[in-house]
């Protein structure tokens, strides 16, 4: 995956470039908005990571100009302004995701990978399948093996989101944002409780667990045999 990081703080940028390289991605760095815009326009990036406040050209302006020129590369906005209305402004300006500073690298990585796949991957599907677990979005049915599993509506949406991003790390905040549409921090391990409930329904009694906890990052549904 090729990434462009537009960030004026050299230390932070260097850390990100190095960290992405360690997990096997290629990351370029631009130190201001103008440089970032011209690099992004050259194209070839899977995801753009754009700081909100940049010298020369503001982060939202960079996204605006990119979109105006027909460049649709997914953009994740990093911002020290974490408030609700600020996020809305960022997304309205054409950003695809928004992450307030300070963030953890695992959170950023998980979101970037989801963004990259959303862009290149297949569109919305009506059925998801991981190993012998099947979820039908139209009939709202979940089947594991030959057994039908009954889920609460919220549990269904949780599983749906996890299966949509099967093989990818999904963080607790991503779940809270996408399943519950909450952007605040509930200050408790509430997501863990929901996950363990879900786990007891889809994994309990089966030899191979599908819903895994990724330490320090979040959760992932994957076929353990792969």
């Amino acid at each position, binding site marked *: 995956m090729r990434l462009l990081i537009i960030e004026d703080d050299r230390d932070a940028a260097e850390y990100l470039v190095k960290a992405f390289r360690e997990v096997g991605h290629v990351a370029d760095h631009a130190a201001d908005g103008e440089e970032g815009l011209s690099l992004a326009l050259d194209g070839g990036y899977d995801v753009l990571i754009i700081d909100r406040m940049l010298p020369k050209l503001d982060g939202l302006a960079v996204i605006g100009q990119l979109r105006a020129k027909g460049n649709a590369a997914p953009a994740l906005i990093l911002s020290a302004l*974490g*408030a*609700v*209305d600020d996020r*809305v402004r960022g997304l309205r300006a054409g950003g695809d995701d928004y992450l307030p500073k*300070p963030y*953890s690298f695992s959170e950023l990585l998980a979101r970037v990978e989801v963004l990259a796949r959303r862009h290149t991957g297949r569109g919305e599907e009506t059925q998801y399948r991981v190993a012998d677990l099947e979820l039908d979005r139209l009939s709202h049915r979940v089947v594991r093996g030959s057994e039908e599993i009954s889920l609460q509506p*919220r549990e269904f949406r949780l599983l749906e989101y996890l299966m949509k991003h099967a093989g990818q790390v999904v963080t607790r905040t991503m779940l809270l944002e996408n399943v*519950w549409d*909450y*952007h*605040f*921090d*509930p*200050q*408790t391990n*509430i997501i863990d*409780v*929901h996950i363990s*409930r879900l786990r007891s329904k889809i994994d309990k009694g089966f030899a191979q667990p599908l819903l895994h906890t990724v330490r*320090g990052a979040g959760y992932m549904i994957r076929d353990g045999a792969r």
Partner: protein
Amino acid sequence: MTALGKLLRTTAFQLTLVYLVVFALFAAFLVGYFALNTRRLINEQIVGTVDTEVTALTGQYNQAGIRRLVVIVDVRSRRPGSSLYLVTTPTGEGLAGNVGSLEPGILESQGWVETAYRRLEEPESAEHNALVRVSRLPGGIRLLVGRDLDERERMFHIVAVAGRWSVALVVVLGVLGGIFVSRRVLNRVEAMTATAQTIMAGDLSGRLSVTGSGDEFDRLALNLNVMLERIDSLMRGLKEVTDNVAHDLKTPLTRLRNRCEAALRMAKTDADYRRVLEETIEESVGLIRTFDALLMIARAESGQIRDGMAEFDIADVARDVGDLFEPLAEDKGLTLQVQASEHATVKGNRELVSQALANLVDNAIKYAAPDAKAANGERAGILVETGADKDQITLTVSDHGPGIPAGDRSRVVERFVRLEQSRSEPGSGLGLSLVSAVARLHGGELKLEDNAPGLTAQIALPRTPSTRAA
């Protein structure tokens, strides 16, 4: 600027100057009018007196001839304060009278004329003015009768002097009055300026003095004092918060640093380092949470989030939050029940109201005692209710936990306030502050009441006019 310069620049003084010029001109006009009228009156008197005498003397002359006229004129001329008389032959030789000399050519004229003259008994140098009437009597005899004009001049002079003095007096009194008034105003303003300067220099306890006269300066000072009071309380609030922030952020920061230092000193294996690093990250996450909560409260309190307001159904919020927390409650052996049958739309920030409700539910779960029984003996539970009447829309969370003592209920919504019995629980002491700030942002309030046993926390939001119809 000098003190005098300041004084001269005051509005009061400049107004005084304008009035002064107007009054001085008016006074001058009055005096001038008076002087001219006086002069006219005196002239009329002289003319009247002289006409009477001329008529009388002409009558005598016509009856008894020149001899009689000369005798009468002689007698009259000698009276003290007499008029001027002169009787001459047609050639101008004097026959009787008290006039020593006249301006040349006067006797040749006829009728009224003003002239300089000298009386007979007076020395050469003395010269006065007079208004005289020259008449020709039958036989060519000329008769001159007149009155001295000194009286008129004296009168006019007196009035002129009085006028000058009165104008001068008006000017002097006016200037003094102006100075007095402007100094009074200036002193009040100067006192206010001085107080304002000490306040600007940092002493917020200073207040403007109020004289109690109830004048415009008093009203201004009273209003400014109220404003200062407000600023002072805001500043004290801010200071309190920064003190608390300093304390609540510095304590974990110190812990963080100590832990790192200890690791550098004592850790031997990679596992030791890893453990310390993980603890450090955990601690920093807690710090960020505290910081985020503080910023959120500050933004809610300053009303900055108002532009993100939209209409939403309070029942949805109650159900969603209940749904989010229900598994957590169940894990603790509690029931979480949501009664949100009634739909009620509220205009506000759904995210913030949800977060506020989440804080209340989280608190209820955190502090609820699982084995406690409700008053009616049923299993202890947490109840989330929505309510709506014609004035307000409410979100209520009731639990059967330890509750909050009545005396502490107003205190717990302050930032960082944590009651003794809850200090051991995790938390920042900001949860209820945020709830209260969110309620106030929406024009409502947070009410804490006794659930006997337990706590009832209610977010009461006013109905907006658009929702009343719904």
